């Protein structure tokens, strides 16, 4: 499904942030990426998405055998990639629902499917909003405009639910969520997840992984994945931090 091989990337001043990432994600898997601040977790998501602030120095990222790095940003999304950033951008004036409909129909056009009409989209949107316990106010607002941190994260998962991606890369989706919101968002992700899809979660805390059981846990440090393991690794990291990994080496 998603295959990242020896991915290296740097920022404008030439500083290399990703120094050779390797990650294989298969359908039905949930991968958790953990690591100290500044280790490259958010950079990884942005590089895969095609953010123009980053330059790819080498390696490949393939989704179902197609090299994402050769695609335009929108083509990557329409091919089945969904990236939720740590701080979702606010876009005042662009209506949330119109944006969602435009995004969905862009994907459908890319896949050669007919445009979804207003009535069908409204039904789909309401269904997903119910799933995430979102009230009607979200429909009237601008994209992430004036929303709290938690509301933005919920809005991101609504987009994920509607766009139905093959692989979702969720960067610190649990930050800014209170206990109830965390449960609702996690339930939403679990509901969207299926044996044909995969999720990569970036998190600092075990609490999200209490709700979404990871297949694998990886530690990213200094731009490389330095350790991988099962769900028990997250518990150990929560208990002991990261320093023991390097000391053990």
């Amino acid at each position, binding site marked *: 499904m998603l295959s990242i091989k020896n991915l290296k990337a740097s920022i404008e001043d030439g500083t290399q942030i990703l120094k050779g990432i390797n990650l294989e994600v298969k359908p039905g898997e949930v991968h958790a990426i953990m690591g100290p601040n500044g280790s490259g977790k958010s950079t990884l998501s942005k590089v895969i*998405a*095609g*953010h*123009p602030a980053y330059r790819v120095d080498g390696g490949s990222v393939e989704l179902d055998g197609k090299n994402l790095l050769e695609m*335009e*940003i*929108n083509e*990557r*999304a*329409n091919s089945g990639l969904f*990236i939720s*950033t740590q701080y*979702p*951008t606010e*876009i*005042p*004036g*662009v209506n949330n629902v119109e*944006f969602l409909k*435009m*995004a969905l129909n*862009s*994907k459908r056009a*890319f896949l050669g499917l007919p445009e979804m009409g207003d009535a069908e989209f409204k039904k789909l949107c309401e269904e997903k909003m119910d799933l995430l316990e979102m009230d009607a106010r979200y429909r009237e607002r*601008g*994209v992430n405009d004036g929303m709290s941190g938690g509301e933005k994260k919920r809005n991101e998962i609504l*987009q994920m639910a509607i*766009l139905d991606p093959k692989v979702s890369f969720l960067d610190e989706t649990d930050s800014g969520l209170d206990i109830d919101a965390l449960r609702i968002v996690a339930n939403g992700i679990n509901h969207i997840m299926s044996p044909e899809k995969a999720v990569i979660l970036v998190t600092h805390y075990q609490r999200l992984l209490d709700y979404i059981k990871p297949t694998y846990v990886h530690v990213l440090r200094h731009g490389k994945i330095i350790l991988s393991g099962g769900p028990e690794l997250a518990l150990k990291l929560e208990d002991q931090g990261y320093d023991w990994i390097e000391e053990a080496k």
Partner: protein
Amino acid sequence: MNAEFIQNLPTAEQAIARLRELGMPKRNNELWSFFPVAKIPTPEFMDAASAKAFATSATSDASENAAASQEADFAALLPIANLARPMIREIVAGSAEMAMLKCNNDFGHTVLNIGKGAKVSLEILDNKVTHDIAAERFDINVGENADVEIFFANPACDLPLRFRHFNINQAAGANVRFSSICRDTAIGRVSVECHLKGEGANFDYRSLHVLDGNASQHSRLTIYHEAPRTTSTQLARNLLSGNARVSYDGSVIVGYDCTGVNSSQLVNTILMSEDASVSVKPVLKIYHDDVECTHGNTVGELDAEQMFYLVSRGIPKQAAQEMLMRSFAQETFLPLPETPAKKRLMSEV
């Protein structure tokens, strides 16, 4: 007061005499410092030969008319000098009117006297143009506590040169909302002189320019706060592509003894190309301490992070740009009350 106002309007001869006195607009004249003045054709009556013929009869009359002798704006005098006969319309106190105005030819002059407490929605349509220059003048006197909206959102116009001049006088408590969308492809100038003469009068100005090609559009506003607790708002937004050029020359003048005045001016421009340009000149002349006046100006490109966000959700770049441009444009008119003006302007955006 209104009868006196009409009586004091300059005659064609007086306007011609005053224009001769002023001469053709020059870049060193503050009123025209941003305007491509070389593009203004010299009217026949400005020629030296014809000037001589007019000289004796016209000049003496002009000196007797205070309004004509004080008028300094070429664009305000031009329609009258070109024999635009004023269309005078009285709107009685307390009435509610929706109207559309359209001049019959290149030069139009409209005088509107709006009575106390009237509610008026006035849309200005493009006039019929046959020459290479058009100029319209509007004198609008707004009575106490009247509520008036003036707006235009005409289709893109390729007139070589167009002037629109508004002279607005507001009595106590009068509220005027002036809103416009311009997509013209040639050269134009909208000038507004607003006199807030009565306590509590409010003037709200909103303009949106969406220009491409070699369009060159210029706004000149002067708002005179002549009474206590008067308020004014200016919001100008520009979306410029190609070689398009916009200037915004906005003055706020707060008089002596005008306590509690509140005024704001904000110009936001998005430049979509390397060659598009904007010039902004805010002027604040404040002769009283207890006032609040602000001005701001931003120039930039479409927000790169917002673009990335939209495109990363699968939306093609061109469509994402259009979404952001539309939202930028719509925000110009979002705060307006739900009136015919807002409906019309938002539908045009």
